[in-house]
């Protein structure tokens, strides 16, 4: 029976011992240990969180960069396209202008030519007229060299007038 019968003296001692140990450890050991554990856990959790956030931020930056690059590329393409268009436009305009100018000078030339031609024709006409008159003078001079012919002529003219 000795083994299974609790002994009051031992119980009292153990109550004191365990109570004191519980009190001391609770107050001076478990609290700091548990607090340190909790703090460390929290700091690890926050560190992990911030790492995750940094990762996300980096990914965001990367995406941004890519976006910027794409945009720049697009802009470059647009600028190039615009430049090309401008160039073509300028060339076309220049061509047009040149065409117009050429046409103008051609027209002017043509007008000048026409004028020259006209004046030349007039000249020729004048000379032809003069020549004709000269010829006519000479012919007339020759035809009216005899008196009879002069009188016949005058008679004819007078007849014409009378008839009128």
């Amino acid at each position, binding site marked *: 029976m000795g083994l299974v019968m609790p002994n009051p003296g031992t119980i009292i001692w153990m109550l004191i011992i*365990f109570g004191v140990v519980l009190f001391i450890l609770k107050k001076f050991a478990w609290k700091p240990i548990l607090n340190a554990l909790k703090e460390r856990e929290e700091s690890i959790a926050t560190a992990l969180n911030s790492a995750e956030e940094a990762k996300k931020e980096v990914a965001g930056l990367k995406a941004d960069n890519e976006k910027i690059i794409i945009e720049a590329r697009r802009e470059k393409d647009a600028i190039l396209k615009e430049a090309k268009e401008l160039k073509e436009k300028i060339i076309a305009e220049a061509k047009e202008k040149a065409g117009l100018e050429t046409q103008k000078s051609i027209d002017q030339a043509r007008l000048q030519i026409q004028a020259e031609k006209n004046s030349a024709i007039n000249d020729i006409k004048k000379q032809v007229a003069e020549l004709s008159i000269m010829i006519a003078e000479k012919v007339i001079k020759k035809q009216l060299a005899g008196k009879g012919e002069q009188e016949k002529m005058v008679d004819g003219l007078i007849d014409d007038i009378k008839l009128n």
Partner: protein
Amino acid sequence: MLKLTKRVFIVLVLSLLSFGPLQAQHGKEEEHAEAVESHGSESHEPEEFNAGEFVIEHVSDAYDWHITSWGETHISIPLPVIVYSKHPELHDGQAFHVFMSSKFNHGHDAYKGFRISESEEFKGKIVELDEQGHELGKPIDLSLTKAVAGALVSVVILLWLVFSVAGAAKRNKGKAPTGIQNLFEPVILFIRDEVAKPAIGEHKYEKFMPFLLTIFFFILINNFMGLIPIVPFGANVTGNISVTMVLALFTFFITTINGNKHYWKEIYWPDVPVWLKFPLFPLMQVVEFSGMLTKPFVLMVRLFANMLAGHMIVTVFVSLIFIFASLFSPAVGLAASPVSIAFSVFILLLDVLVSFIQAYVFTLLSALYFGMATSEHH
């Protein structure tokens, strides 16, 4: 593993019960005979080895801490005896006595009217004697026995370990743990995350953590110290029913103090229809109330029986050597020694496992009881 230990324990207890008393009686007769024959002479016949007594002596509490015996010379550490007499007139009018247990000369002598009883009723306990030397009964005995001394040694080690961990925790605030901190922190986290949180709940567990940690490490260290067979370790502390009773009482009182309305309602006025309640009115309440008491009782007995069994088996296997030696010849005992030592080592290793399991089970069940006492609904 537990079952195995328990089975071995049962077998051993049965075998002890069957031949223990016979052996004891036999021993006593012999002692008497010896006392009659060679009273006062120094030349005793070498006492025959009594395995039952040997084992029981090893696991029971004692007033001194026995180290070894060499022939008839007993070497032991005396421990303080503190007694408060119920018959001060027999002790020169003084009621309160403090002296070292060495005054009893290993139970052979009486001192100041006290002696360690050898009678059937008070065997092994301090009794008061009247003038004629008859036993009057036990005084109020507050002696610092072997179990208490062993517990004190363990407590010193426990405090040293835990305080070095606490120191390291303070030193390494916000840094990686170092040294012994690495050994303790996983266990502390295990108790917190696997025992306290699931059993008590996320919001209320913090209040009980110091007690759960203290009881776990107290039981564990005491279990381990009990396995080391060298003084100042090896005292059977957690295999002492008074010790386990105190631990269970702490659990019981903390459960009772923290019991909320719901806990008491479950016991005395559970949520069942009234017409069902009345036929069993006083009976159910009595059953529930006894359930409240059996919980710590079971805690007490489980730890006590497991640790006692471990100690007993180891001692039995060691004593096999002497049983064989005394039954046949010392040569047979010597031949049996490797086997029994191998068995002892096996059981000791098993006991290391059991030490962990019992500390864990005690802590887990305490946590579950706290959880029951503080839960709000099913």
